[in-house]
């Protein structure tokens, strides 16, 4: 009897928590839709911004965000993959624990720290300034841990017997990687990539003073030029605009950004589910 009461209490608590989380998500998305939808039209998506964001669109900001995001992914992916493969194939179990710890610790560093360090080390120290390349490197460092964790999960989920069965045939480490680990880690790589991209797209603090400029920016003509991003655009418009048109445009930009991030996260989730189903066969 008492157990049942406890069960019911626990169940309702869980339900309430879940309901809160889900409704919060819907409230936020609904709110952004409500305010942002009026701004969205063809011109908004395809034109550059004018008049400090009060007129024109967010074409350069959108492309800037996507550019930064993909460059960061491109830099981070091989490093994350390499780290994980290295720790799986060449390091003993105890060393692997140390690398894992390092990766998790890196994951917990507040992003503003990445921004500051990046500004000091890469921007000032290496004289790369506020630019596409500086921002990409910082974002890459930032999304590296979550990518590595996701790849590591995919590899750790592989039963040891496969590794043993490959090694016992006299396969060297490189061939073990090529014939077994790489194909096996592919879903983890994709999940990690998309989650990392989503995180990079949503990030503001780390790129605020390392990669982006607010106005007068078109497409960067080289990697040493700054890029415009949706994130900074929203931040500046929301903080400083007095013109109501500019505020609506900020909401419109937010809507685009949220759509982008959601699409990436959903893709990652979809791939992960496919993998689960495959693993259960």
């Amino acid at each position: 009897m008492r157990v049942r009461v406890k069960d019911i209490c626990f169940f309702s608590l869980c339900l309430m928590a879940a309901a809160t989380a889900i409704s919060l998500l819907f409230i936020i998305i609904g709110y952004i839709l409500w305010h942002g939808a009026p701004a969205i039209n063809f011109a908004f998506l395809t034109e550059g911004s004018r008049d400090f964001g009060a007129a024109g669109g967010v074409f350069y900001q959108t492309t800037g965000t996507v550019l930064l995001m993909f460059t960061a992914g491109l830099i981070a992916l091989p490093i994350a993959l390499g780290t994980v493969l290295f720790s799986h194939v060449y390091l003993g179990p105890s060393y692997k624990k140390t690398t894992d710890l390092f990766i998790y610790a890196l994951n917990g560093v507040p992003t503003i720290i990445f921004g500051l360090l990046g500004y000091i080390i890469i921007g000032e120290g290496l004289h790369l300034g506020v630019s596409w390349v500086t921002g990409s490197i910082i974002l890459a460092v930032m999304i590296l841990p979550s990518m590595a964790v996701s790849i590591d999960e995919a590899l750790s989920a592989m039963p040891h017997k496969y590794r043993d069965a490959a090694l016992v045939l006299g396969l060297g480490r490189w061939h073990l990687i090529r014939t077994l680990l790489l194909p096996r880690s592919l879903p983890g790589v994709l999940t990690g990539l998309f989650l990392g991209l989503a995180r990079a797209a949503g990030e503001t603090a780390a790129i605020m003073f390392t990669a982006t400029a607010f106005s007068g920016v078109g497409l960067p003509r080289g990697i040493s030029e700054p890029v415009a991003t949706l994130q900074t655009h929203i931040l500046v418009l929301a903080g400083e605009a007095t013109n109501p048109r500019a505020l609506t445009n900020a909401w419109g930009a937010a809507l685009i950004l949220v759509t982008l991030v959601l699409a990436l996260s959903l893709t990652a989730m979809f791939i992960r589910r496919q993998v689960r189903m495959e693993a259960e066969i």
Partner: protein
Amino acid sequence: MSELFRLTKTSLYFGNTPVIHEANLTIKNGGITCIIGPSGAGKSTLLRSLNRMNDLIADFHHKGTIMYNNRDIYDKGLRLEGLRREVGLVFQKPCLFPGSIHDNVIFGIRHIREKKKEGFKVIAERTLKAVGLWDEVHNRLDSPAIGLSEGQAQRLAIARALAVGPKTLLLDEPTSSLDHRSARAIETLVKELGRTMTIVIVTHKLEQAKALADDVVFICEGKICEAGEAANIFSHPENIETRCYIEGSPPLDPTLPYPE
């Protein structure tokens, strides 16, 4: 006949507990050597140490020396991949890779250039024929290997090991999970392979050992109790534990009460 393996004061540890304690043993070149003994005696561990497959286990370490062809297998200059290609091993439970039957047979040789010249198809056919699986699978080489029965999977695992071209094959209880007929098929295969290569096979079936072995190594509780020619050991076991094991009665334990 010349010796192939020589173990000198070899101890094998998981953590701090020795699973094999100061074993001295030689295994002849050619023919079939059977390792027998009660469960948990350390048979698999001993077998796996012959091509260093224990090294993959986190807290494993060893003492003493293990020589293969008069060479220390822990020698710095020795290539581990080379050793494992010469000394193949098939686990107790066959572990097939996801992928087709053909993919599985050639898994260990896909990257070896000389083998590519010979042709993977040719090698696959030859080894599948050697294990007697060709007639059963030749018209579905490209279908998933997962669909095979356990006996077939075990033979495929042996074919996969043979494809690499080992001079020695280590087999860990290859028939333990098989029905009588599949077990007989494997025994016939092992006997056949024993004519052309060295086979070291772990088994706990006495009948199997009697049918197959040229030499026998009897292990109990991590010690080599007796080793030598099969005919001798089965007819005149010197060691009390061996005799009890062979005659099927439990060893005498003075601490147990006398049976009523």
